[in-house]
């Protein structure tokens, strides 16, 4: 009995070592050097770049995405009842940048949309997504988040909620 378990154990153990080596060395079996494609070099903004302030004024001031195009894309995600932007999209401070209210919103599509939007904007987007019931409930009880968002500076992209 003891012999058998020993026999079983050994190859398993070796396999694990092999797998581990592969992980740290890659498929070629060579040890990865610090700079070879593994992305060990980091790049950061040069704070002393001579046109830094001008570039910032030029590129960060206008709205980072076309609202019209965004509205169309959001509308295609599901039965969206309300969509509004704030925060980074308007260069104003607010609790969130994007709010989407809708039923049956395709979460995977939404994630993809968000990713491409973040790529365009250049930063993370703080968003909230909820169904109509939750939105109505939050609004009825003067939920802090929804209230701050709706009272602060914002731009409505889609509004199909009958008041």
């Amino acid at each position, binding site marked *: 009995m003891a012999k058998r378990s020993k026999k079983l154990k050994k190859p398993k153990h070796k396999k694990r070592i092999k797998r581990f080596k592969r992980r740290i060395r890659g498929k070629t079996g060579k040890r990865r050097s610090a700079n070879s494609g593994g992305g060990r070099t980091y*790049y950061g903004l040069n704070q002393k770049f001579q046109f830094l302030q001008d570039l910032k004024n030029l590129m*960060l001031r206008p709205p980072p995405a076309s609202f019209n195009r965004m509205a169309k894309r959001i509308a295609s995600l599901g039965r969206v009842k309300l969509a509004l932007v704030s925060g980074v999209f308007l260069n104003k401070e607010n609790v969130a940048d994007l709010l989407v209210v809708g039923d049956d919103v395709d979460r995977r599509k939404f994630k993809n949309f968000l990713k491409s939007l973040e790529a365009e904007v250049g930063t*993370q987007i703080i968003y909230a997504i909820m169904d109509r019931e939750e939105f109505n409930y939050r609004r009825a009880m003067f939920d802090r988040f929804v209230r701050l968002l709706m009272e602060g500076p914002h731009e409505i992209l889609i509004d199909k909620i009958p008041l």
Partner: protein
Amino acid sequence: MVSQIFEELFGSKARVKILKFFLRNEAGSFDLPTIAKHVQERRPVVKKEVARLLKIRFIQKRNKPPKRYNHG
């Protein structure tokens, strides 16, 4: 519309996105795969653009471990 103007002006969509990415993440430093992931462009394209920006010293090489990508 605005983004179209930038793309034409700077000659590349990827370049515009990388510029914005660095301007919005002033304090951070990022490796190529991270930049490519965030700007949603292919690695070789990003590599080329980063080399260009490095040449004009818009960005610098840093050895420090990267700061986290964050909002603002």
